[in-house]
């Protein structure tokens, strides 16, 4: 029988009960959330089950939601069932003060560098990873650059004129007051789990 999203939801709920939640189906891709302690169990279940067979890890990345307390960092796994051509997205949330997540390298060898990149950008500590060190940035860097509080530009450069590039300075045009974010304050709280 065809592997429909409802069937996947039923199987997940049958195995994990209330632990998996946040099911949504926007743009035809099933998305769900599970607690971070169960991430390996869910991945193993999706891998081993004979009907589900999600045996290809397409992508692994992280997202930072500074406004959701206790759940600031999300790790997003995109899995793909190549035989039935079904994709699924699986998220786990973790606290930014204790960002430990079990590594998926035992199951998928491709997760090795993807987790290193996630550690490099967000500081998530993958427990059990064979070689967790910075991969893209300089080794001596002491902060995690993709977190929202850090700026894009290099703060130590002295040759470029901040005002002319719209980054504050004395005159002030092009500062945060006029950049592109216009999210209404009340909506900011709902950004994490249910994006639509």
């Amino acid at each position, binding site marked *: 029988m065809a592997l429909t999203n409802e069937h996947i939801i039923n199987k997940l709920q049958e195995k994990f009960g209330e632990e998996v939640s946040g099911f949504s189906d926007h743009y035809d891709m099933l998305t769900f959330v599970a607690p971070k302690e169960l991430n390996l169990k869910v991945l193993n279940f999706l891998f081993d089950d004979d009907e589900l067979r999600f045996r290809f890890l397409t992508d692994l990345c992280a997202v930072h939601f500074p406004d959701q307390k206790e759940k600031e960092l999300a790790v997003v796994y995109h899995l793909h069932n190549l035989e039935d051509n079904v994709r699924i997205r699986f998220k786990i949330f973790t606290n930014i003060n204790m960002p430990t997540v079990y590594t998926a390298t035992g199951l998928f060898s491709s997760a090795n560098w993807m987790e290193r990149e996630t550690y490099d950008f967000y500081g998530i500590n993958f427990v059990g990873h064979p070689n967790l060190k910075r991969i893209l940035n*300089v080794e001596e860097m002491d902060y995690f650059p993709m977190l929202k509080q850090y700026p894009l530009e290099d703060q130590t450069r002295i040759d470029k004129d901040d005002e002319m590039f719209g980054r504050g300075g004395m005159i002030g045009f092009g500062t945060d007051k006029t950049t592109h974010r216009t999210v209404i304050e009340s909506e900011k709280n709902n950004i994490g789990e249910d994006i639509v």
Partner: protein
Amino acid sequence: MSEQHIKLPEGSIEKTTTTLNLGPTHPATHGVMQNILELDGERIVSTEQTIGYIHRAFEKIAERRPLYQITPLTDRLNYCSSPINNMGWHLTCEKLLNVNTPKRVDYLRVIIMELARISDHLICNSIVGVDSGAYTGFLYVMQYRELIYEIYEEVCGSRLTTNIGRIGGFERNFNDIAFQKLQKFLDEYPRVLREFENLFTRNRIFMDRTMGVGAISADRAMNYGFTGPNLRAAGVDYDVRVHSPYSSYEDFEFDVPVGTTGDCYDRFLVRNQEMWQSLRIIEQAFKKVQEFKGTEAEIYHADVPEYYLPEKEDVYTKMEALIWHFKIIMGEIDMPRGEVYKSVEGGNGEVGFYLISDGGRTPYRLHFRRPCFIYYQAFEELTKGSMLSDAIIVMSSLNLIAGEMDG
């Protein structure tokens, strides 16, 4: 002469390995990546890769720019076939914004994407030739890449980092010269490709250099996240154009070449065959485009007023066009909320774009799934136990592009 052999006591010679730094600047010119090899004589014992020498923080830059300003960033990912990345990004935006493009736009996009694929595979295959000592193939084939560049120039004005197309279609209609040049390409290129194949495919030296080198099985390849020609050479026929067709690929008839052992020779052959199939697709698309007549032949974009700049005559005469022009240029268009993942078949495999939008003007998070980054991890497994010169051939046959790896 004394025939005495000097006998050294047992255990007095320690076998140590040499560390060789195949450093960020190496003549194999694939971009900047570093490999620290442990060699036992000429055999490779282990390797360690260091990348990040061209990390340009695309994902952080993208959080600052509205959607149409991110297209030039996607150019610089796989810069040998930048139109494919551009089209992939436009398809992602169109998925988020729920836009349907007309058929003519889809067919023109297919022509441009397949030209880019030919361009990418030409570089990869000719560089495999250069690394095994045959410089001629590279020079002959560069001439035809120049013709492909001329076709891009007619459409978008630029040769390499094209920023081609817009959200919803193209910036201008393809003019007659572009079609003339495309016809010239279709007429002349098959002969050149056949000559290139004759030079390499049954060449004794080339076969000895590449057969059995860097082989990988289908299971390990899928576990390592391989996609694209490298995975198809290992035996798995996964092609995003067939699995989840985009831009009307389902209207075209083409085969997906699949190899058996996944070694360098198979990768070379798969890329060659893909170039033939791309030629086939371009011919079909060209014929289909020429069937549109009259006003239908003037359609080159969908109707997306929020993201597609209106024509200049309308801006100066109509009110709505003026307002849209102002809003687009000043960047005051809000995106719908949502998260979307879209992937296209790039020169190296599945190029994916994961876009999270929170309703603001710029993406909240944009992540690029870069195939080179993912399959370079397998390099150690591919070269364990082989010779030093094989490591070079494996590196070039994997088609590693540094811009895509670091991003």
